[in-house]
């Protein structure tokens, strides 16, 4: 039995503790937003937050998150109440096929949480672990920088 917090709710599972977190979340808890791309922590499609840090969950065993807080794309925002990054993704028509985007957004959210005003090169470095085969990189970068600008604007106002 492994217990952890998934999008704010305490959950328990009998899954083999060696099962990568990705499959526990997708197949046992039926949250399908997080994607499988490579199985080797090379593409970032499976990115979730574990205690706030962006982690590749296709190689992270379930027992590594015992007692920890896991956030998935579903926990970041919903169609009715999207996260600022998700709003910007829509405003800039970032996605093409869309498959990698949950992972991209989770990496971006972790970046902005730790560095709300990243330089362009910092965005590139932080996002280099997430592959987009459709090549949405210019828009992903623009969206992250635009959200950072919005944060700054809010700070100035408030």
């Amino acid at each position, binding site marked *: 039995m492994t217990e952890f917090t998934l999008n704010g709710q305490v959950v328990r599972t009998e899954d083999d503790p060696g099962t990568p977190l990705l499959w526990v979340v997708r197949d046992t808890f039926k949250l399908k937003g997080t994607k499988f791309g490579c199985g080797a922590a090379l593409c970032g499609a499976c990115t979730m937050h574990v205690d706030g840090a962006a982690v590749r969950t296709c190689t992270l065993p379930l027992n590594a998150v015992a007692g920890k807080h896991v956030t998935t794309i579903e926990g970041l925002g919903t169609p009715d109440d*999207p996260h600022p990054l998700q709003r910007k993704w829509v405003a800039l028509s970032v996605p093409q096929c869309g498959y990698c985007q949950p992972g991209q957004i989770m990496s971006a959210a972790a970046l902005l949480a730790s560095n709300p005003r990243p330089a362009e090169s910092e965005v590139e470095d932080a996002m280099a672990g997430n592959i987009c085969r459709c090549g949405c990189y210019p828009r992903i970068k623009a969206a992250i920088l635009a959200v950072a600008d919005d944060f700054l604007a809010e700070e100035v106002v408030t």
Partner: protein
Amino acid sequence: MKATRRNFLIGAGVVGGGLVVGFSMRGGPGAPRLQAVEGAYAPNAFLQIGPDNVMRFYCPRDEMGQGVTTGLATLVGEELDVDPAKLLVEFAGVHEEYGNPAMGGVQATGASNATSGHFLPLRQVGADTRRAIVLAAAQQLGVPAHEIATEDGHVLVRGERHPYGAFVETARTLPLPESTPLKSESQFRYIGKELPRIDSLEKATGTAVFGIDVDIPDMHHAVVQRSPVIGGTVVSFDARRARAMPGVVGVVEVASGVAIVAKQYWQAKKAAEAVRVEWDLPPLATVSSRQIEADYRHALAEEGESAESEGDVAAALAASRTVEAEYWAPYLAHAPMEPMNAVVRIGGGEAEVWTGTQALGIARGLVARVTGLDAERVVAHNTYLGGAFGRRATMTHVVEAAQAAQATGKPVQVLWSREDDIRSGVYRPASLMRIEAAMGADGTIAAWRAKRVGGNIVPGILRQMLPGLLPGMSGGVIDWAGDRVDGLFGGWLVEPTAVEGLAGDYDLPNREIAHVTKDHGLPLTFWRSVGHSFTAFAKESMIDELAAAAGDDAVDLRLRNTASNPRMHNVIRIAGDRMREMRVPEGRALGLAAHGSFGSFVAEVAEVSVAGGAIRVHNVLCVVDCGRVINPDVVRAQMEGSVMYGLTAALHGNLEVENGAIRESNFHDYPILRMNEAPAVEVVMVESREHPSGVGEPGVPPIAPAVANAVHAATGRRLRSLPLRPETA
């Protein structure tokens, strides 16, 4: 294609979590009884208008990232007078009404032709449906039809605003109008406007459903152990250990190997490692890249088959100094981010299949073939495609899921690993090309002789698709047909995709295009931009080489030799003018290339630097003429993405064959361009009233030669082999 009035049995299948995944119109005797959405007006296969004014659009083409749902919803919404963002887009099921008008009615998506093929037919669907609502409103309200206007899903009459849905009862009783006049350009509210994509929110929130996300009751998971050499067959296997492992319900032989079926994916994955398989390997097992390249080089000396011959090339080559060069392009995998997958459920004399595919009818046919059911008793559901690029027209994974479901009696999802994707796929053919060319005294290209050596894709595509297109045809007949086509292209005719783009864009009064078929047995298929993906590299590199040898300006040379190709000439002129104005920092240089494909014309300028043996592409300008633009931002996105896709091939893409096996396996040795390598891309669209042409692929071909030309400008080194590696020049 003409939408006809029919009494469709239409409905939405609801599966897991209220997800609407599709519908069936035929609903054969064993198929689920699907009903039309309650009370909805369904005048044709594409539109349903509910009394609540909810409007569904059944999109006939597959969404693989190219924005086709946005584009086609815009076409139908324009004439229906409904904001395309308000249309509920459903992926169409299998039906002849959803055939691709640009592909002879086959229900498939590719060749960058969705917009051009549907531009008029889907607008007609929208116009006729709108007219039907107007006529119904006229009758119901007792007002002459000419006094009725429409706006965004509402009828406007005498200062009142009624939703279309208020008239669907009446509309159902009236004949459907036909050949309703379409809007003129000045009336467009949505076509040509900067509108956002309609699928972004789903895709940004993880709620968009891809094939891998389909989950049905009692669904089991299968992992397939595959032959290390493609085409190998199982001699025997030992699954004693695997069968005893947790969750495993079956280990069964399937066409492509041994499927391990378990309750959970990870259980199947772990158990697969415990299965030992003895393989009978095909002749491909004796082949390696070194030999393939040597065979190709040897074949260049052969005369080959003539694809095109005009004028007197020999005389023109003899009359002036000849520039001759050979260009190499390797095998490539498509590597879409979503690995191949399919769900199949069989039972009660019927079957269902869910998969994200470029050819849903083939998926249905493959399941029918495996199960022995009539295709009418198989319901096929499409989903979003997590990338495709030509890969998702081949569906070994559907066969595997059907066989595993059949053998175990469980609903099964097959999921490929990334290693499966790279090593057991279908590939962009490798090519060796030689071009000999000579300039005339007047600065025109006096002679052009080009030859390509490599495999053909059509025979393999037929073998891959016929079983699903014609589920009743025996395997023996399909093999026979494939062999005949092999023979046809291996010594008599030149397959068009093998040489497309080797000569097309320039005025070449004296030209010869020839082809030598060399097939080593690796399965080949379409890969974004197909033959153009390698021919443009040879052709556009040679144009720069010709200019350099003649002391000519490469842009001027292109302009001088495109007099009879005005749209090509125009994009070269625009890109060339911009290139001359660009001021690049020390250590960087510019290169230009242009190429026409899928009816569109694209010129690209790359700004590069070379340091430490690595090429860095900093900026790209892309000038495109794709006829009338339906959604400028979607075109922009496709050009940006095409540049990135083409750059991955230009800078990284390479598959090596070792004893018949693909050496590469995952993104560490088959790298994909990442954000820290991605250039900024500026897209310029030529304003045009021409019929819309391709957008998904034409941006790919020019980027590799543009970068190669820029590397030459930066370093003086001419790179003639893809991927471009300055250290090996």
